[in-house]
Each structure stands twice: as structure tokens, then as C-alpha cells.
């Protein structure tokens, strides 16, 4: 960060606080944009927008795009693009829908809804996604076909292989074990959510201070303790607020009654239960944490960023950039399959148009989240936040009755404005011309 000689004293003061806290300024901007969206729609909807029910819905709806956006960060950082993620999602969904409803039951001679069949289905789906991505990566890395072309072709090919796989029919999915992955049907309940939230908060605090100790052991400068404490406090606050809020969203009484009847019991008078954390959101958090660790703490992640920063330097440093490309796209494919599992469970069916145009939302989420298309720059948390901002916008607009075409227009404009603001900001800071 270069100092700006011309900035007013007030600005300089603020800059120092931000520098001391070592907050990514871009992250701060995104958080403020997110807050602005939330405040505007909260006022507009008279409070319904931030109600536990809507927060829950936004969280659940964000998951598939956010999972894929995590993989897209790696792809774009490595100076590639993947336009086929929506079609790969559809393809994986089709494979999983067919295996659990017809292929595997006929092979094993079991009924639909057998847990073993579902387990094998998930493994097949994830493996298929990984292989699909790997093929893309091989064409890009070893055959040197531009990723734009390979994945543009993939967009058409997989979308239509998907069509043939199901003969163009929708497949209804009712297995309760599958629906657990979707959101509303798979929640932890209030108690388990609180326990998990507290554990996560404890781990976050421990991680911050462990990293501080490690830096100190090598004699480096560290932030003042108050700065660490503020950061830790913020993170713990966000975790516990999120958990607490979702734990205030009650499961409808009629549904509870149905659940008790399914077990052959009568529902006790006055019984209530809360949703708490959805399993799909836990999957997203797990993906986000793991991808962040991979990006920052493994050689695989380091090489992806090096390749994006200077492909020749990466090659001359002895990094096998071709094999790396295959791995990046294979990981992207794996995450598409995971997103497909969540998406079909949430929709409780596989339809032909599942994941349609999702590639654009995924790329937009990564870019709004600060991933530079020129490569070398990007963060996982940024991409997840980008997906969240877009979903909040759409959800908010839907709630106040904005027509669908206009919703899409706004999302498109937000993408352009986000990148524009970033360019202006970098120019002012003297990071680019």
C-alpha cells in the first residue's frame, strides 16, 4: 500500500486504522455494499428482508453458485475461464438423478430410497464431475486449446448430453436422505447449531492467535493485541449472530406434525422446533475453508497464483503448469458435481434446465468478489461474498415485486459497476494506470 501524500488528514487517520487491522480494503468495500443492499431492502420490505426466514432462504439459495464460484476463483486466477460449469452441473445432476432412481436400483435390485444406493450415487456423481473437469483441463493444459473455446464447446455438449441422459424428462426426487442436502429438509436444529457455532468461534480465535505466535517466534512485527482482539471479536460476532438468527426460524407446525406421524407418534402439545443451520450451508462453509487453506497454505494453491502472475516464471521455476491446469479444472468439475447434489436436492427434482446460465452467475460472483480476469489475484471469501450479494439483490428485488427481466438487468449492471469501481479505486491508489 503506497501512502498518498495528498489525502486529507481524516482520510490518513482512517487509512492507518485499516492498515493496523490489516483489513483487505476490497473486502471492506464488499461488506459495505452488502450492508447497503441489506439496509435498503430491509426498509423497503418493512423488516421482512432480514427476518430469519428470508436470511435462511438467501443462505440456502446461494450455496450452489457459491460452491462453484470457489472453484472458479482458481480457474480465473490461473488465467483461464470455465463457461461450462452450468452445463457440468446439469450433467452431474442428470447422472445422479438417473443412477439413484433407475440405474442402480435395477442393478442391485433395490427400491428407490435405499441409503446405499444414494451413497454410491454421490460417489459416481462426484467422480464423473472430476473426470469431466479433468478432460477439459487436459484439452487446455496439454493440447493448448484456449479454455474459452474448450468450455464454450463444453457448455453446448454437456447441456445436451444431459438431455439425452434423461430423454429430456424431469426426474422427481423424493428420497428424504437426498433432500437432506438441499436446505429446508436438512437442518441441524437449534441446539446442534449453537454447539457448532461455538466450536467454530473457538477455532477462529485460536487460529488468529496461533498465527500471531508463529509470526512472533520468527521475530516479525505483529499487529497490536487490540487489533487482533477486534478482528477476533468481529468474526465471533458474525458466526454467533448467523447461528442465533437461523435458530429463531421455526419449522412450520404442520410439517412437524407430519414428521411425527411418519414415525407413528403423536406430536406433543405446544411442541416447537427451530431450523438452525442447513446442511447445505455447512457444506459451503467446509468448501470455503478448505479452498482457502489450499489457496494460502499448500504448494498447489501457491503454484496456481504463481502461474496466474507469470506463467513463464512458474514454468521456469520447475512447476509443471500442464498438470496443474488439469488439476484446477478437475477440482472445478468436482465442485460442479457437489453443487449439482445440493441444487437437485433443493429443487427436489432434476430438470433439463437445471443450472442454466449459472456459469454467468458463477463468474460474476468471482469477479464481484475481486478476482481479476487478468489472473493472479482473487480470494475464496470474496467469491462467496460476491455470490451472497447477488443472491441478496435478487431475493430483495423479488420480495418488493421487481419483474424478473429487470432483476437480471440489475444483476448485470452490478457486475459491470463492481469492476468499474475497482478499476477507479486502483487508479486512485496508483496500483495501475
Amino acid at each position, binding site marked *: 500500500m503506497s501512502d498518498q501524500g495528498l489525502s486529507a488528514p481524516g482520510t490518513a487517520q482512517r487509512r492507518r486504522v485499516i492498515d493496523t487491522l490489516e483489513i483487505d480494503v476490497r473486502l471492506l468495500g464488499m461488506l459495505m455494499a452488502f450492508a447497503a443492499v441489506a439496509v435498503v431492502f430491509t426498509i423497503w420490505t418493512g423488516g421482512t428482508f432480514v427476518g430469519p426466514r428470508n436470511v435462511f432462504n438467501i443462505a440456502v439459495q446461494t450455496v450452489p453458485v457459491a460452491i462453484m464460484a470457489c472453484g472458479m476463483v482458481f480457474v480465473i486466477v490461473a488465467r483461464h475461464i470455465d463457461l461450462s460449469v452450468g452445463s457440468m452441473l446439469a450433467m452431474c445432476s442428470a447422472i445422479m438423478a438417473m443412477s439413484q432412481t433407475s440405474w442402480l436400483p435395477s442393478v442391485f435390485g433395490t427400491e428407490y430410497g435405499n441409503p446405499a444406493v444414494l451413497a454410491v450415487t454421490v460417489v459416481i456423481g462426484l467422480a464423473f464431475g472430476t473426470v469431466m473437469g479433468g478432460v477439459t483441463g487436459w484439452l487446455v493444459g496439454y493440447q493448448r486449446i484456449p479454455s474459452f473455446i474448450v468450455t464454450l464447446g463444453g457448455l453446448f455438449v454437456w447441456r445436451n448430453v444431459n438431455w439425452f441422459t434423461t430423454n429430456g424428462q424431469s426426474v422427481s426426487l423424493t428420497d428424504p436422505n437426498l433432500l437432506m442436502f438441499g436446505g429446508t429438509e436438512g437442518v441441524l436444529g437449534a441446539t446442534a447449531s449453537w454447539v457448532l457455532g461455538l466450536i467454530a468461534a473457538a477455532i477462529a480465535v485460536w487460529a488468529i492467535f496461533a498465527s500471531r505466535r508463529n509470526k512472533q517466534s520468527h521475530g516479525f512485527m505483529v499487529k497490536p493485541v487490540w487489533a487482533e482482539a477486534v478482528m477476533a471479536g468481529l468474526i465471533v460476532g458474525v458466526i454467533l449472530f448467523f447461528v442465533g438468527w437461523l435458530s429463531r426460524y421455526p419449522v412450520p407446525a404442520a410439517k412437524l406434525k407430519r414428521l411425527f406421524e411418519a414415525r407413528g407418534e403423536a406430536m406433543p402439545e405446544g411442541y416447537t422446533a427451530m431450523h438452525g443451520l442447513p446442511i447445505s450451508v455447512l457444506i459451503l462453509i467446509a468448501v470455503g475453508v478448505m479452498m482457502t487453506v489450499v489457496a494460502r497454505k499448500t504448494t498447489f494453491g*501457491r503454484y496456481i497464483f504463481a502461474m496466474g502472475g507469470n506463467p513463464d516464471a512458474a514454468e521456469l521455476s520447475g512447476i509443471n503448469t500442464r498438470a496443474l491446469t488439469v488439476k484446477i479444472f478437475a477440482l472445478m468439475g468436482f465442485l460442479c458435481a457437489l453443487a449439482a447434489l445440493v441444487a437437485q436436492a433443493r429443487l427436489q427434482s432434476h430438470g433439463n434446465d437445471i443450472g442454466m446460465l449459472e456459469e454467468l452467475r458463477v463468474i460474476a460472483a468471482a469477479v464481484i468478489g475481486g478476482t481479476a480476469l487478468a489472473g493472479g489475484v482473487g480470494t475464496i471469501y470474496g467469491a462467496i461474498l460476491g455470490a451472497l450479494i447477488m443472491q441478496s439483490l435478487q431475493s430483495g428485488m423479488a420480495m418488493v415485486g421487481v419483474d424478473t427481466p429487470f432483476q437480471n438487468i440489475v444483476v448485470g449492471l452490478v457486475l459491470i459497476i463492481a469492476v468499474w469501481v475497482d478499476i477507479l479505486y486502483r487508479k486512485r491508489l496508483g496500483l495501475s494506470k
Partner: protein
Amino acid sequence: MIDRTKPLVEMRDISISFGGIKAVDRVSIDLYPGEVVGLLGHNGAGKSTLIKCLSGAYQKDAGQILISGQEVEINNPRDARDLNIETIYQTLALADNLDAASNLFLGREIKKRGIVDDAKMEAEARKIMGRLNPNFRKFSVPVSALSGGQRQSVAIARAVYFNAKILIMDEPTAALGPHETQMVAELIQELKAQGLGIFLIEHDIHNVMKLCDRASVMKNGQLVGTVNVKDVTDDDILGMIILGKKPAHLAA
């Protein structure tokens, strides 16, 4: 004690063509421990191409490479590194978006339980930079924020840290100011004294006269000749570069 009698590197009859054009045509050069050999010639004379097949960036079409008397195959930069050959490229080959320590250890990260140990790498980077360029402070910013000389120190630190035996420097002072050029010159003397062999690709004839023990001149992909720098004048060398002929008093 450094054994200066056996060659560290022998490149024999190396040829490389690109689509019918002979970029390097049966060139033989060698390098002894504790010696600096300058590679000279016009742009396009084939110096960089020749040296890139030693650093693994290109593969030779014909010829032999011997390292300490053993014939070796160098198919990629990893092979070269395994033979303790380190290269400092003209373009510096740094990933601009990563910090100095990440660049220094790129491809050879220090790991602790499978996890990249950034703190340890930064500590090591501080140690080696303290030796090479004590004024260097910018450890936590991307190298794109560094000056030409600072970037050069990172590139050199990378070569020195991993105990190179053979160092290839492609115009190491091209982007540097006078003070930084002096720093690189002193470093070359120090590395030479430690017994490294250094190939120096250089355009500036004064640097060649000052830094090199021998000079090999190339023109149009062919070797014009190799001379002992103390037996010739800078005009002799310029004559070789321009006319492609050895000076009369040295011609056999």
C-alpha cells in the same frame, strides 16, 4: 580447495533449429569452477538460445552436455535445478503478484506437515537478503511493487540460496542503475571466489572486460571464437562481434 582443472560444464556441438532456421549451429563452449565466461554477440546471435538448453527452457536438437564430466539430459527446468544449475533470466522470471519470499522459494517451498511454512520462508528470505542487499525491507508486498534492483536481488537470492554450482546470468545489470550494477559486480566476484562457474550474457563491453575471465562470441548462430579477456582489448572483442572474425594476432 577448488579444483580449477576439470571443466564444470562442457557443451559440445550443440545445435537447435526453429522451423528450418538454425538458431544455434554446432557450438561448443565450456566453463571451469571459479570462472566467469561471457557470452557475447548481437541480438539474435543465438546466445540466449544456447544457454536456454543448459537451463532447461529449450531442448537441444543435437550435441552433448557434460556436467563435471558426466553426460546429462536436460529436458526441463526441473532437471537443470537438480544438477545445481540456476538461471537468472533477463525478464527476471518472477511472479509479480507474490511476495519476495514466495518467489524465492517458488517450486521449492519449505513445508511443515504438508503445509507451506510462510513464516519460516520469510525468515530465511530475510537472512539471505540481509547478505545480498541489506537495504531490502519490502518483504510483505508483491514484487510488482519493487524497483528493478530490488527485483534483481530477489532473482539472485533465489539462485544463491539453493547452492548453485553453475549460475547463468542473462544481462543481470540491464535494468539497473550504477549503484546496483556495482552491487551485482561485487556479488559475481564473491560467488566466483566460492568456486561457482558463471555464464554471463552481456551486451556492455565494459562489464565484460571487468567481470569475465573468458569471452565466447557468437554470430548468426555460430561460435566466432573464445578468447582470454586479459589477452585482448575491447576493440578486439567488438571486432569479433561485428565482423565475426577472431583478431589477427590470436587467429591460429
